[in-house]
């Protein structure tokens, strides 16, 4: 049977509706939001970079070290306190590892073989 719609029409329909909405918002905008200050934008960028790094580090470095670093950094970004960040990092990485590995039975690797040698 022929398909009278084809694979392009529906996405184009969505695009048209979206465009109409965009114009409607443009014509009658809401109040401008409170954009964060430069320092906070920088903190958020730091968090994004940390998480991207975490995504790449998870496999080659094993679970414990990247998790400790990433959760420590995120904790520090929320509250500027080195000690709580350190404790959060270590506590979360060890605690979550134990939870995932032994309670839930996920196949996580604590430390990569490359590191231990």
């Amino acid at each position, binding site marked *: *049977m*022929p*398909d*009278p*719609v084809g*694979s392009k029409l*529906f*996405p184009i329909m*969505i*695009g048209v*509706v*979206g465009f109409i*909405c*965009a114009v*409607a*918002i443009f014509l*009658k905008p*809401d109040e401008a*939001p*409170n*954009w*964060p200050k430069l320092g*906070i934008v920088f*903190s*958020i960028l730091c*968090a*994004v970079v940390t*998480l*991207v790094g*975490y*995504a*790449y580090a*998870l*496999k080659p470095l094993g*679970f414990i070290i990247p*998790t400790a670093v*990433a*959760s*420590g950094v*995120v*904790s520090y*970004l*929320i*509250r*500027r*306190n080195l000690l*709580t*960040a350190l404790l*959060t*990092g270590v*506590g*979360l*990485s060890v605690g*979550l590892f134990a939870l*995932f590995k032994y309670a*839930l*039975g*996920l196949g*996580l690797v604590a430390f990569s073989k490359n590191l231990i040698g």
Partner: protein
Amino acid sequence: MEVFSLLADGFAVALTPQNMMLAVIGCVIGTMVGALPGLGPSNGVAILIPISFSFGLDATQSLVLMTSVYYGAMYGGRISSILLNIPGDEPALMTTLDGYPMAKQGRAAEALVLSGVASFVGATFATIGLMFLAPWLAQVAFLFGPAEYFALFLLAFCTLGGMASNNQRKAAIAACIGLGISMIGLDNSSGMPRLTGGSLHLMDGVDFLVAIVGLFAVAEVFIFIESHGKESAIGVKLGKVTIPFMMIVKSFGAMVRASVVGFIAGVLPGAGASLGSFLAYMTEKAISKDKDTFGTGNPRGVAAPEAGNNAAAGGALVPMLTLGVPGSGTTAVLLALLMTLNITPGPMLFKERPDLVWGLIATLFIANFVLLILNVPLVKIFVKLLSVPPWVLLPGVTMVSFVGIYSLSGSYFDLLLMIGFGVLGYFLRKIDVPTVPIILGILLGNHMEDKLRQAMVISGGDWTYLFSSPIAIGLWIAAIVGFVAPMFLSKFLKKPSAVSD
């Protein structure tokens, strides 16, 4: 009656030791998820899905666990609303209005017990409603063809955009973003890649769970970095928990009324629990003689939104199970769970898998009793959870999200995509664009397009076919009214802040 014998079979499924245990675990986790601000129900369920897969649960078991979490989260949300004046999840927003004032007057324990009982009344009413309404609606759903389904999907987006958000234009554009994202990947009919930009990673499309965990969990981290976790209000101390019988008796009428209102709001596709609690509160306030005391710690102002929110949560399961159209953000996640388990919700589900449907309903009854125990006599345990500071909670949630998504696909690309969605979610939150329509769009986009194409194939390209049956016309009218009417009613229904679960 047939319903009761089916329900008895359902209890036979639900009462196996393993399923009972899963229900109890689900209730505990759910109450925790609901109680912790910054970890909402949709996001909590979404994070748990990959973990339950790696746990090797079958379809019934996963569903038992997840719906218990879902019901539990609806109970738990009130705890931080009352004690901290921060809703633990979005539907609990209305509970802050009278719950926190009650707590400040030293009546925190009373408010917690009352709202726990109200949650129980609402959820039980909704589960009974689900039991009778769902099989009937499943029969009606047999009359639905592609044109009716297309209109129904449209109705879900329109009610979600029209009623559950403050700005229809922004909700509509969010739905378009979601629908657009769902188009990425292989075209269902021709098998050709669309909108992938040549990337092999995008050939399979964007995984729904990656999007939802990114938009909710990861975005929340950025929000907390911005606020430095400072927004936590001063908590109220909880005294000895006693049961205020007189107050419960006096508020019982409010609970029942709110349950009816909430259930109806929940059954509407796309409306959800937030709308249920909102309407329940407004109705109760409107019919009360002592209107002025609402907002200053009126017990009925605590009972009504909690009963309404839990009734709506149960009601939202009706369209999800019978029609495959979720009634709220969290039921959208549950729908995603069903789809991943290869279960197609809809009328056939009631015929082919009665064990699953009725086991689920029986579980909901059991979960309700477990939750009543957890949330009234044992509520102090969950109150302790509120002392977990955001700088420990948020990194923890992020790491669990990463491990969950990673264990699902094992690909870096999905993790990066999730971070991308997190940034997008933060940005959208700042400009006040709701994210639930995006989720619904990603989930329903392909179905919506398939139905449109099927309708056009049947009619040979005649567009009037979309309006050819009374059901379809009714749904189109409901969709348009659902989207347009709130614009005129907005003066009367002013919401305290953005509502979406």
